[in-house]
């Protein structure tokens, strides 16, 4: 469905069910050069199992209009505006990679409006090499291939988002190209990477959240190695937050490389 947020059309996939703000709401936030479709299996399942789902395209990405966020903080403000525009008082936030930083910062700002926080493939800081940032701007196809290679851990993924017969590596490349092409004004690849690289409020944000947090990490993740999430995990624990950590035997793209295990971790945490 389309929601007008900050005067711009925002697309949110509702999992094949009508939007219903009376149910517990889960907001899914994608990473750099992704869109709502990376969450299809998990969001569709939850939408048919008692949740109200909003899997969004971030502003300036694919079906959503508006200015693509330049910083994690801007994107977090957008999430707050989204909830207001949709008439959702409280929601769980689930973010992947860059989206995990957006979810984290939004949870810190929204306090008890956020019921659960799930950080999939996260890191703090989420530094991006200068070479890759430069490449994302000037040689995006080359950078996309590199990122896609580092995001994958297997040549034999189980049945995935398109069902059996999906070649997740190719699907990642095609989606990245489509998202990049969707915004002729801004290179959202470069802008997203810069936003990840510059975000420095992770530990303070996780200490400020008012909800339980799940870290859903890939043991073979070469983009955001599980070790890179440790400072966030320690900060959350030190601040007395309810912390869960689930490690899956896959790479950075847990949602498509191990869709069921990712779903079960999400479902169990959100129901808890």
């Amino acid at each position, binding site marked *: 469905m389309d929601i007008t947020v900050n005067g711009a059309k925002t697309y949110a996939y509702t999992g094949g069910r009508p939007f219903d703000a009376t149910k517990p709401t889960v907001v899914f936030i994608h990473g750099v050069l992704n869109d709502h479709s990376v969450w299809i299996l998990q969001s569709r399942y939850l939408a048919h199992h008692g949740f109200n789902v909003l899997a969004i395209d971030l502003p300036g990405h694919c079906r959503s209009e508006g200015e693509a966020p330049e910083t994690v903080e801007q994107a977090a403000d957008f999430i707050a505006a989204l909830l207001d525009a949709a008439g959702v008082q409280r929601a769980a936030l689930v973010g992947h990679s860059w989206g995990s930083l957006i979810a984290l910062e939004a949870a810190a700002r929204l306090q008890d409006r956020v019921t659960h926080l799930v950080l999939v493939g996260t890191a703090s800081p989420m530094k991006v090499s200068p070479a890759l940032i430069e490449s994302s701007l000037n040689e995006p196809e080359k950078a996309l291939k590199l990122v896609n290679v580092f995001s994958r851990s297997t040549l034999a993924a189980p049945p995935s*988002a*398109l069902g059996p*017969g999906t*070649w997740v590596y190719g699907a990642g490349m095609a*989606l990245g190209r489509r998202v990049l092409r969707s915004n002729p004004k801004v290179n959202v690849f470069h802008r997203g990477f810069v936003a990840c690289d510059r975000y420095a409020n992770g530990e303070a944000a996780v200490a400020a959240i008012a909800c339980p947090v799940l870290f859903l990490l890939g043991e073979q993740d070469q983009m955001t190695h599980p070790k890179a999430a440790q400072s966030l995990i320690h900060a959350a624990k030190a601040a007395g937050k309810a912390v869960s950590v689930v490690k899956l035997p896959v790479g950075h793209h847990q949602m498509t490389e191990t869709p069921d295990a990712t779903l079960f971790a999400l479902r169990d945490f959100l129901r808890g």
Partner: protein
Amino acid sequence: MSGYSDPGFDTLALHAGASPDPATGARAVPIHLTTSFVFESSDHAAALFNLERAGHVYSRISNPTNAVFEQRMAALEGGIGAIATASGQAALHLAVATLMGAGSHIVASTALYGGSQNLLHYTMRRFGIETTFVKPGDIDGWRAAVRPNTKLFFGETVGNPGLDVLDIPTIAQIAHEAGAPLLVDSTLTTPYLIKPLELGADLVYHSATKFLSGHGTVIGGVLVDGGSFDWEASGRFPELTEAYEGFHHMVFSEESTVGAFLLRARREGLRDFGACMSPHSAWLILQGIETLSLRMDRHMANTEKVVQFLASHPLVSRVGHPLLESHPSHTLAQKLLRFGARGAGSVFSFDIKGSREQGKAFIEALKIFSHLANVGDCRSLVIHPASTTHFRMSDEALAGAGIGPGTIRLSIGLEDADDLIDDLKRALKAAEKAGA
């Protein structure tokens, strides 16, 4: 640069889609000869039917062995996924039936396999789908054939059997300007010789019966989606962009930004038309794919020698292979194919000087070449297209496809090249005597 994380062609041909079987440790791909798969629970069953979880339900829709074949072909073609079908013809029909219904229009090359020509010219027309045929090199003709209801452009990488190379980048551009995708039949070239998706095509299919399986043992097809075509931006495909009452009111282009076509093709096409592949067939084809590059190298080497022999033989008036500078597609083949004109395949035609009787004498004198209706076998094959594969076509249509009444089609196999040349030499001698 290839490496484990970014594998090259041969590594993908052996490993894409498959890992040691977690249940048994089997290293080769197991053949899952089962019609159906047990549900863990009622909730699991419902979730599988509603696409909330991915998995196998019934082997007409998907099967683990077929899924390996599908992933492998998508990997080799550079696509997002694939669907295994009962035959190459089933793959073509699945593409057409997924994209359109009655009142739609296709622009297709004249240089097509006879079966494809039949399907489009006669059978689909009966179902209200019209096709305009255009010579593959007639660029203006492709553009002029577009109608408001055009839903698809279609051609073969190298046209059967004249080996007219399709100018994929140019035809793709024309198709995209018209808001339609380009579907390419790459049966004769395989992904080893050309990757149509990288050149701008949107969908690719194969008769896996041919070089992919490579041993003349199995019928099968596969349809690969490049995930590049924007169905919503086109505005011509409500089948993919509007709610489908026949499947949970799903809007396929919302479910998957890049995979709407594959979703509908599997969930409607395989479900309702049912032209699925047997897991045993998928396994046989996988055996072939594992040695695809080795075999194609040998096919090319043998073909080069045979073409040179025939081109210099006094009883041969024409050899239709882009290896020869006289072939109209020589330059395009050098430009588009991975190995240049050498990579234009090992299925080609030539004309014998003389009568139909001499052509018949030629075929009947061959001892190594088998006279049958197939190509892409490891064994060398021969056929007379005008009386077999293309027999339904008029003389005018035959000429449009580059086929004459005396044209002979060869499919060069993996035998010793010297033996193949000896066989041809002997048969040409017999043809010469028949004309005396």
